[in-house]
């Protein structure tokens, strides 16, 4: 089934005359773990807030589970789990009271799963939220979101503030969760290794646009980085289409190319480099290339 759980159509958002999102189009099919990446203030949280109807768009439309975000009913909200950036939980409540409130207001609540999660995270349920550490708040927020067994889980930088062990536990849980048929996760994070580990599709926001929107493997195949060494000085006129970045130093050129193919390989060989080595690129390397202010990668992907 290829039903889209999340749809964003030509989304534009201005804050005080500043364009944050400029014509975003995005589709997330059912069962997909979508990693939304971007630098600080690139608009990741804004997209999520608009999707959840917490923020109005300036132009364009967004849909969650087939319903327009501005008119999401309580029933639709009941099928969505949300972990907000900064974990905006009610500070003066104890964890237990907050859990009781969420349980009473939810359409569906799995007590045993919630208890299991609070045990894993060692959450003190009698302590006030304001007295919990950021990590504990993140864990509580995640436990609350998972206890409703959502069809769609939206995680806005959920691992922020978690230590390595807790982060690993969280990722294992997320992977476990996706194993359930038809469950979809929209995951925004600054920790690229986390996204790389669990996401099967990636979106990168840069300059208000969705610079990249493709499967993780496809992205890695499409962007290549080479170190070329020439017998004499490196040629100044080495031009290929879709060069993202190029650094020349003596006999050496290090360049990043988008949409690498045989034609480009043949073209490169006409410059007769004495050696051509492909440098491995992690998601972090690709992300840095995509979000550089002078990057042209957005236009090529």
């Amino acid at each position, binding site marked *: 089934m290829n039903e889209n759980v999340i749809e964003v159509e030509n989304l534009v958002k201005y804050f005080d005359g500043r364009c944050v999102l400029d014509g975003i189009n995005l589709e997330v099919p059912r069962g997909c773990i979508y990693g939304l990446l971007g630098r600080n203030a690139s608009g990741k949280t804004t997209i999520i807030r608009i999707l959840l109807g917490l923020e109005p768009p300036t132009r364009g439309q967004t849909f969650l589970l087939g319903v327009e975000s501005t008119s999401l009913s*309580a029933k639709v909200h009941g099928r969505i789990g949300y972990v907000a950036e900064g974990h905006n939980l009610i500070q003066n409540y104890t964890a237990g009271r907050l859990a009781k*409130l*969420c349980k009473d207001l939810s359409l*569906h609540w799995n007590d045993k799963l919630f208890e299991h999660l609070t045990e894993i995270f060692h959450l003190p349920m009698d302590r006030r939220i304001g007295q919990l550490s950021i990590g504990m708040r993140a864990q509580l927020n995640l436990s609350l979101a998972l206890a409703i067994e959502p069809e769609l889980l939206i995680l806005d930088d959920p691992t922020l503030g978690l230590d390595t062990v807790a982060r690993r536990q969280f990722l294992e849980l997320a992977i476990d*969760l996706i194993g359930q048929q038809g469950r979809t996760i929209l995951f925004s994070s600054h920790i690229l290794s986390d996204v790389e580990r669990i996401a099967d599709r990636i979106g990168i926001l840069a300059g208000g646009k969705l610079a990249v929107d493709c499967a993780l493997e496809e992205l890695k195949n499409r962007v290549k980085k080479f170190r070329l060494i020439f017998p004499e000085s490196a040629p100044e006129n080495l031009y290929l289409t879709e060069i993202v970045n190029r650094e020349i130093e003596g006999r050496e050129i290090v360049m990043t190319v988008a949409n690498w193919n045989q034609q480009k390989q043949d073209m490169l060989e006409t410059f007769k480099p004495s050696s051509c080595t492909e440098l491995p690129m992690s998601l972090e390397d690709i992300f840095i290339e995509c979000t550089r202010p002078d990057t042209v990668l957005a236009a090529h992907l």
Partner: protein
Amino acid sequence: MHQARYGVSGASVKGDRKMFTLIKREIEDHIAYFLGAVILSSTLVVLSVWAAYNYKNEPPVYSVGLSIPVIMILVIGFPAIGVSQMSTDRNRKISAFLSALPVTRGRVLIARIITGILAILTVLVPLTITAMVLWQLLVPPIPIIYPLIYPCPIFDMFVTALLMAFACYCLGLLTGWASSKATTTLAGLGLTFVLIPLVAVKGFGLHTTVILVLFIIASLIRVWQKFMSTPL
């Protein structure tokens, strides 16, 4: 998967139960105001009974003495509940949290307003019952002036006081949700001090009721519009 592993005890919750949960949450969060309302109401009831028996032959002293604290409660107490409800929400991002649950913003606001009305009734109902009992016991029978509208003047007074208190409460809601508190507080106080002379001049009755109802409708529409359109 989790269902198989952990078992499911959750069940679908009906809308009215959710509304009850939201109202309960509001009352628990503002329990101090409810306790204050009960204490004030009890004090006023005791004072009324005491004054009614001790100043039987001096009705102006009795009525003026009682009306001052009632007006003070109307002007300060009820707007304070509205301000407290809305500013607590704004500061602690309660609506933002609740809106991510299966609760619409509209329901959050309706639950809040119902809680406000309950607080108003906590003060006014005991006072009205006391006044009605004292009226029956101490005041000689008089002809009913508006037989088609209200059965007795005490009921007139109760309706006007209820509407007045609710109007002040609505101004409190608006002030509490506004980002520029100083301007809205001044505007709210200004409107309150227009409403009090209005009641003083027009008295209790249909005209005052209509004006207050229109004022309340306008205030509620503004509160609804502001609350529903503000990004959370």
